[in-house]
């Protein structure tokens, strides 16, 4: 069945390419739900990608590489949290600075590591039993990265935490109305710090996935704007972890198609597709929302100072 193998190929690759987008978007959703925009995703991802590769290559343990990437992403996000939460700096500018810094630092440190294939990439996993289901099995459960499965489970868990637990209420209230949350005894600063750092951890893992799993190698600028797609996806997913799965899959498929269609269209024009599509998707979301920012946390982007107004 030709169309079946075609479909299996598309969905399978969309899942793979959607994985870093999903991880990044889930992290950004949590940061923004707590009221902090972090435009530094691209920077945190590239730092994660480099550190994961460097650690995996020198130790031979790709899993350790991913863990280090998570820590590095978290530390990078800590800078952003300190500047925006404690010093109440402009969130846009701080995030941009983080991206510039991350891209520069990764490029600087990564000089000698370029073009070497990773000796031990993260192994792909086939889930026994589930992979036997016709069509769905090979599409979803055969030869995917463990991070792909983990990302999907994480999305569900994060949705439950956000909407069904006290923590979730605290996070959402901090993003909606920090003064009210503060008055009710919620530690606004702590929650913002934790959410921003959590976002950084996930962005770090997203970057690590790229360099030790998807393309087990290190190239300067290998995130190629994916961090920005993540920020668009956060809006597109209406700050909802479950909707992020759909968004990540859609853009994963788009990235994959931009390789598939090279027989018919020039590769350069195909590569711009995800970016053009991101604008289109947000424009359509804008049309649908009739100008209202659906789902956006009320205090998004606004620093909180105790006792002011």
């Amino acid at each position, binding site marked *: 069945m030709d169309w079946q193998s075609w479909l299996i190929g598309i969905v399978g690759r969309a899942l793979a390419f959607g994985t870093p987008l999903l991880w990044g978007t889930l992290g950004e959703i949590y940061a923004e739900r707590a009221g902090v925009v972090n*435009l530094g995703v691209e*920077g945190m991802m590239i730092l994660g990608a480099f550190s994961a590769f460097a650690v995996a290559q020198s130790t031979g343990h790709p899993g350790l590489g991913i863990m280090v990437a998570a820590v590095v992403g978290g530390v990078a996000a800590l*800078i952003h949290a300190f*500047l925006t939460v404690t*010093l*109440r*700096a*402009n969130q*846009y*500018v*701080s995030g*941009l*600075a*983080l*991206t*510039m*810094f*991350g*891209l*520069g*630092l990764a*490029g*600087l440190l990564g*000089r000698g590591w370029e073009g070497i294939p990773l000796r031990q990439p993260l192994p792909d996993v086939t889930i026994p039993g589930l992979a036997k289901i016709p069509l769905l099995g090979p599409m979803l459960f055969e030869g995917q990265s463990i991070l792909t499965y983990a990302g999907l489970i994480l999305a569900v868990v994060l949705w439950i935490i956000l909407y069904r637990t006290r923590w979730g209420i605290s996070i959402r209230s901090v993003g909606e109305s920090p003064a009210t949350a503060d008055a009710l005894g919620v530690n606004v600063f702590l929650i913002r710090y934790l959410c921003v750092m959590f976002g950084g951890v996930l962005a770090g893992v997203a970057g690590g996935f790229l360099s030790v799993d998807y393309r087990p190698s290190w190239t*300067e600028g290998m995130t190629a*704007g994916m961090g*920005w797609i993540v*920020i*668009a996806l956060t*809006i597109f997913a209406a700050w909802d972890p479950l909707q992020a799965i759909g968004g990540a899959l859609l853009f994963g498929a788009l990235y994959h198609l931009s390789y598939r269609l090279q027989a018919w269209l*020039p590769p*350069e*024009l195909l*590569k*711009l597709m995800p*970016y*053009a599509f*991101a*604008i289109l998707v*947000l*424009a359509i*979301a*804008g*049309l649908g*929302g009739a*100008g*209202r*920012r659906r789902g956006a946390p009320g205090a998004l982007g606004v620093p909180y100072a105790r*006792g002011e107004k």
Partner: protein
Amino acid sequence: MKRVGPFVLERRLAPSRAAVIGVSVLAVLAALLVMAIIFWGYGVSPWHAYATIAKSTLGSRYGLMEILRRTIPLLLCGVGLVIAFRSQFWNIGAEGQLLAGAVAATGVALYSGIPAPWLLPTMFVVGFLAGAVWGIIPAFLKVKLRVNDVITTLMMNYIMIYIVEWLIHGPWKGPTMRGFAYTDTFPKAAWLPTLPLSRVHWPTLVIGLVAAVLAAFILARTRLGYEIRVVGESPDAARYAGINFLRVSLWVMILSGGLAGLAGVGEVGGIHHKLLSPVQVSVGYGYTAIIVAWLARGSPIAAIMTAALFGLIFAAGDVIKVALRMPFQVTGVFNGLILFFLIGVELLMYWRVRLAPKGERWTGKAGSSES
């Protein structure tokens, strides 16, 4: 008012000019300090690094000229971004708008057949328009559909980068370039004149300086400038006053994108004389211009100074690459650091520290009078 030991911290509503300058200098110094640590970590003596940079940039005529030529695109993009930021339009797309100008200028130079004396002026006009068109798409989407301006302007960068890649690999690939991904070299009539023994294409520099002065005039003295400021400082007041957001945003992005487009014309017409890989046409001028504009704090005239500062940093990047054998990415690290420190110390500007008056006692109530 807060009391800390023998000092009192007072809040002020508007920072004084001295505070702004002092705090900005402090930020740059702090970034230099952290950068010294990075040099040291890379195995380069920071003292040697800074001495080499100073000697090869500020210490020679060639170095000074290189600073100047790097300043040109930063100035044009920076002035445009100052205008955009004044209206709270987050134009992160100067990079793409610059490239749009470069593409348009290349099209005119290679394919229009316009006779010599009119060729360069046409390149500038068309380059401005191309940058403006690339800028007004996000403006339209922001006002009409509330699409986030940061994201659209950024995505437009990537789209333009791949359009340039496509042009130089495909339809515009120069037959005389032996397989390299360049267009053909421009005819001599499309080369911008330069100062002797340098790459300073002075007509673009003049345009940049005039643009800074004009932008200052527009912001301070015209109705459009007034509307830009009201939209930026108090959108609610602007709405109440019946200011047309679409009109203001479109004008802002025509100017902002157009100026970046002019920078692109200068780069291909004055330096490269052909269209080539986007990372070579612009080594991140559009992104660095964000810092140029932020450091200028809303003043186009101040952008002349801050553009020169970052011109120096780019020139230093070249020195670091050649003399110290470190990658050019050092500039990216440094730019990020400066930006971190700039916004990090911003809060300082709004506080004044002075000795507490004698006899005044801490009652605990003083803290609540802070507004």
